[in-house]
């Protein structure tokens, strides 16, 4: 009972923590996606210089640990005359780090689109931009969603270190709750369940996006069919 009371008292602060965690996750995720698409496409560019630049950046941000990047942006950047808000620093580090991983996913997925599709687009004399936007990307997109979802979940879990740059995220508030209640199991149990639920919502959202992407390619039921409560027709079963 004491715990529930403590939870009730701590709830507003817990909510603040959840908001910070969500900000970092969604902000970092959006930046990571932009970075992933940019570097991923650059890594496939015809020019050796562009490819080389992309590869260097990708390997750099993948190879140096997230925490090093976070600290570097937090402690070293101000020395170079750039001072960022802690939240911006967090989003930047998460976005660059996981974006570099995402770039490999984007590159791999575009490469996984069957060769014939490229040849056909060339045969139809589509311009390169047109070919990418209308033919290759929609197919690659359907391939890359599951891996990008995994990365988004990794990013969500990565936000839990935000406290090292003085952000009061969910993990930080959890620690406050533990100190207030003296109950490790309760406070960290609550926090892990919240993280788990956030992750589940993200996965559900990503599954919906994947269903939509596949439906647009003519593979599988539409999102409306997936989400309706009536049992799906038998034909759709094999796809799911």
């Amino acid at each position: 009972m004491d715990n529930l009371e403590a939870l009730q008292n701590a709830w507003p602060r817990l909510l603040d923590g959840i908001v910070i965690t969500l900000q970092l996750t969604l902000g970092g995720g959006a930046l990571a996606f932009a970075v992933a698409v940019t570097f991923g496409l650059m890594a496939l560019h015809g020019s050796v210089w562009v490819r080389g630049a992309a590869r260097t950046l990708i390997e750099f941000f993948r190879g140096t640990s997230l925490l090093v990047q976070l600290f570097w942006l937090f402690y070293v950047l101000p020395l170079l005359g750039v001072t960022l808000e802690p939240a911006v620093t967090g989003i930047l580090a998460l976005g660059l780090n996981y974006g570099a991983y995402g770039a490999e996913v984007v590159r791999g997925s575009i490469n996984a689109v069957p060769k014939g599709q490229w040849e056909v687009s060339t045969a139809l004399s589509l311009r390169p931009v047109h070919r990418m936007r209308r033919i290759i990307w929609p197919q690659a997109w359907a391939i890359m969603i599951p891996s990008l979802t995994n990365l988004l979940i990794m990013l969500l879990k990565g936000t839990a270190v935000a406290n090292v740059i003085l952000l009061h995220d969910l993990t930080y508030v959890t620690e406050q709750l533990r100190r207030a209640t003296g109950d490790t199991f309760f406070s960290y149990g609550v926090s892990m369940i919240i993280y788990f639920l956030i992750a589940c919502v993200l996965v559900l959202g990503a599954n919906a996006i994947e269903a939509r992407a596949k439906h647009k390619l003519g593979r599988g039921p539409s999102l409306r069919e997936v989400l309706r409560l009536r049992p799906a027709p038998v034909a759709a079963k094999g796809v799911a």
Partner: protein
Amino acid sequence: MMGEVWSWERAIDVLPVLLEAFLKVTLVATVVGSIIAAILGLVVAIVRRSAPAFIAKPVHWVMQFIRMTPLVVQLLFVYYALPSTVPRLWIGIGVLGVHYASYMAEVYRAGIESIPKGQWEAATALSMSPTRTWRKVVIPQALRATIPALGTWVISMFKDTPFLMVIFIVEMVSRAQSYGSQVFAYTEAFTIAGLIFLAASYPTSILVRRLEDRLAY
């Protein structure tokens, strides 16, 4: 001293400090953590496949939960839940191992599922015991397909070792931070720490990619 952003003097001064923390903590945690993860992951994958549902299902749920919640929170949870007499590094390595076992179990599962059904049937037809089937038929083949993916996770664990600082383990990055706060200059310490990570993980990832190409059927 404060005026310059980069000083080679400090860089040379901090390098041995970081290398020491790297060898004594970061590398030890990665190696021991990987061994725990590789063994536990395999056990979980086998249990999920061959144990009765009332064991396999809960094991699956627990691993799923571990996979979907942050390593940092798990570290803090176990650290505060255990008596303070347990050495921190052990806790850190244990949690790291269990967390990554949840990823590796998925890799093994995919590897085991890639074994053609005929292999299982042949083992049954030869009246091999289940243990023998696993040890002599399934695992050797599954392992071949999984080694590169396991390698990728080991590299990932290596880069996650700085998370150990949340339970006050002094690994390389927290050593860099404390050095920085002593001399009021962080540039050299963090830059070199990052470069050490890069120098260790980039060649390993190339090795893993080569391995992948060579082991591919």
